[in-house]
């Protein structure tokens, strides 16, 4: 799994690539927590290149949303892959996250 962060004026984009499961979730969670520690509460997850998302990854998305909401922030998804959408739908959590067709649209939504 590869993960990177890119800060914009009103939002930070966290880009995740590869397989997100229990073997990689710690790395994902650490990146999210590092960003939350900066005080940023508006997060976009670019998940266009995630090819597997297990419940361990879902848990971090849900945790991020909860933490963001505590600071009046919003978590949104940019171009989630079919696999990401399928995992969210199976878990019934797709309704929690507004998704955008492009990264630019997601950034512009803040």
């Amino acid at each position, binding site marked *: 799994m590869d993960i990177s962060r890119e800060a914009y004026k009103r939002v930070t984009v966290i880009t995740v690539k590869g397989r997100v499961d229990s073997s990689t979730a710690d790395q994902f969670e650490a990146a999210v927590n590092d960003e939350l520690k900066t005080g940023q509460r508006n997060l976009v997850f670019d998940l266009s290149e995630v090819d*597997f998302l297990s419940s361990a990854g879902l848990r971090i998305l849900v945790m991020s949303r909860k933490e963001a909401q505590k600071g009046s922030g919003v978590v949104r998804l940019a171009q989630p892959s079919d696999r990401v959408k399928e995992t969210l739908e199976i878990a*019934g959590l797709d309704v929690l996250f507004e998704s955008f067709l492009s990264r630019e649209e997601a950034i512009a939504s803040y």
Partner: protein
Amino acid sequence: MPTHSIVVPALLAEVAPICDLVNVEAIAAGFDSRTSYACQLAVGEACENIIIHGYGKRASGQIAVTVHSVPGQLTVELADSAPPFNPAENQLGPPDPDNPRLGGLGLLIMHRVMDEIDYARRPDGNTLTMRKAQDLGIDP
């Protein structure tokens, strides 16, 4: 009909190869990619439960994986020697979007994807059998 059996160390790094095996057999069963992915997800969750909760991440455990396919049906059996744990009994209620839970998502996924989940306690461990069928649109 194709049957593949492997025995792997109970390590999180082994889950992806198990999912790859499930994908091979799901394709052999004629499943579409969406259904194959759902099966990989469910089996991956079951394996992660065994490794994390069953063995407690002890490196000494093993998982025996048997994947069997016939047209339109996939059966996956996971055998371990961990303490008793019955995921077939742990069916959770529907997700609550207003108060999404952080725990139990793996079990939820397993039960929402698979048609059947059977558990058996052996003297020396657990056997979990999961079945999934997909209508291939073929008249009998």
